[in-house]
């Protein structure tokens, strides 16, 4: 797969015009993480509805096209879903969402940063702790 495939129109579009970018005035969840390898940063804020649904979600961050597009697309996917849904989201789901780009071990961390932030926030809100199975901390 070439970079033209990785950086498809869709990813570039979300990089330059990220959806759900910004801060919420009222939120129940606020999570943050960084990828020290490249300095990527993602913050997510979520307002939870009475039925444990993700009523509103926004993110801010700085980083590469893959990390920002991935975080942005994930917020769109998560909006309106039950918090339980977040627990089920997998690496494979994220890669599928991005169009299954061929990413090496270091770039895959960029793609998964948004998911890590989302899960960390939701697990914390639900009173548990998210253990990253891929150990993306291993690069630190």
């Amino acid at each position, binding site marked *: 797969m*070439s*970079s*033209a495939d*990785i*950086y498809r129109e869709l990813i*570039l579009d979300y990089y*330059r015009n990220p959806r759900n970018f910004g801060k919420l005035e009222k939120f129940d969840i606020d999570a943050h993480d960084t990828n020290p*390898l*490249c*300095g*990527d*940063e993602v913050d997510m804020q979520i307002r939870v509805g009475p039925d444990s649904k993700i009523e509103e979600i926004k993110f801010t961050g*700085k*980083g*590469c*096209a*893959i990390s920002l597009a991935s975080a942005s697309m994930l917020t769109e996917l998560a909006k309106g879903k039950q918090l339980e849904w977040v627990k089920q989201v997998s690496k494979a789901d994220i890669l599928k969402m991005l169009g299954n780009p061929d990413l090496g071990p270091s*770039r895959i961390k*960029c793609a998964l940063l948004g998911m890590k932030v989302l899960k960390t926030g939701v697990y914390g809100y639900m009173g548990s702790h998210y253990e990253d199975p891929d150990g993306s901390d291993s690069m630190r």
Partner: protein
Amino acid sequence: MLQTEPLDVEKIRPDFPILQRKVHGKRLVYLDNAATTQKPRQVIDALVDYYSRYNSNVHRSVHTLGEEATEAYESSRERVARFVGAAPRGLVFVRGTTEASNLVRFAWGEKFVKPGDTLVTTMMEHHSNIVPWQLLAKAKGAKLRFVGLLPGGVLDLAQLEDALRESPRMIAVTHCSNVLGTINDVAKVCSMAKKAGATTFVDGAQAVPHMPVDVQAIGCDFYAFSGHKMLGPTGIGALVGRRELLSEMEPFQGGGEMIREVFQDHSTWNDVPHKFEAGTVNIADSIALGAAVDYLDGLGMTRVRNHELALLKYSTEVLSMVKGFKDYGPQDLAMRAGVISFNLADIHPHDLATILDEEGVAIRSGNHCAQPLVTWLGVPATSRASFCVYNSEDDIDALKAALGKAEKVFKV
């Protein structure tokens, strides 16, 4: 060989087996030399030769292999020391520059740093010349102060002057920035520091591989560098120190080799530098570092510097023509090593490095283990191309072409 004669890159390249390899079907254009350099056959052979002919422990065994290994190890120490103008007995083999600064943090810091002291570093340092001093300051109740930079990425000597009024215990400064390539006038910094009574630690990791270095002329107390950035193996480097100071310091790690006598209630220490080389040392890599130094000596460091300066001039000319190219290094190339930190339009460096890799072009992207500096630049990250003896104008042309490809992919 005259030091004015240019390097013959076509003769040098066949010495580096890795340069034959293809990446994504393309010729490897290796421009990540500030991270680590490739190794010539002579260095690889030195490793193979040691393990296949005379592998043995040093300073212990009196049999033939032991004597040969000890001789090769100590001969390497002499050549590496001479390469930077140091006395062999003032050169401690360490894992690399990071271990050198940590050795000083413990062995020197334990004895000489007191509560309320000030330690000084700068805004252009690698994390290995910041974090050990943060830890030391915290452990000792001392303060760490940063000297800032002037626009263009050079040290603000007025700020240094100001910091020196506090009579700091130490000044830790890089000889050459791994991000901007800025070459600091470390002789001047050390003389200023000396007048203020401060001990000086110079990080030479990016200088020793790329220019003539003479620690006596610099006048520093400590000077550190890494083997793997100067054509040598990973896991080996050197800390050069003034011998009186090294003698006064506490040991770093305790164990075999570093002791003179061991009793149940106390021990006495071996002479410098062995006092700081506890346990079985990294014999093979030390010997191979000697081979790397021989290789660089054979080329001549003035010629190496001139070669990389010429490449830097060519690159800044050629790359400045690329639309959206921004170079962060000092404009005065005479005070800059062969390093270009840059950004291209709105393409994040990490994305850029991925696209360049497909063209066989290896660069570094990120904060280069120098977060305070990259923050000071006001960008999340930069891309960095850095040169070595085997790079040529062809490599710069390949970089330029790959940047064009990236602009196409990103529709800049």
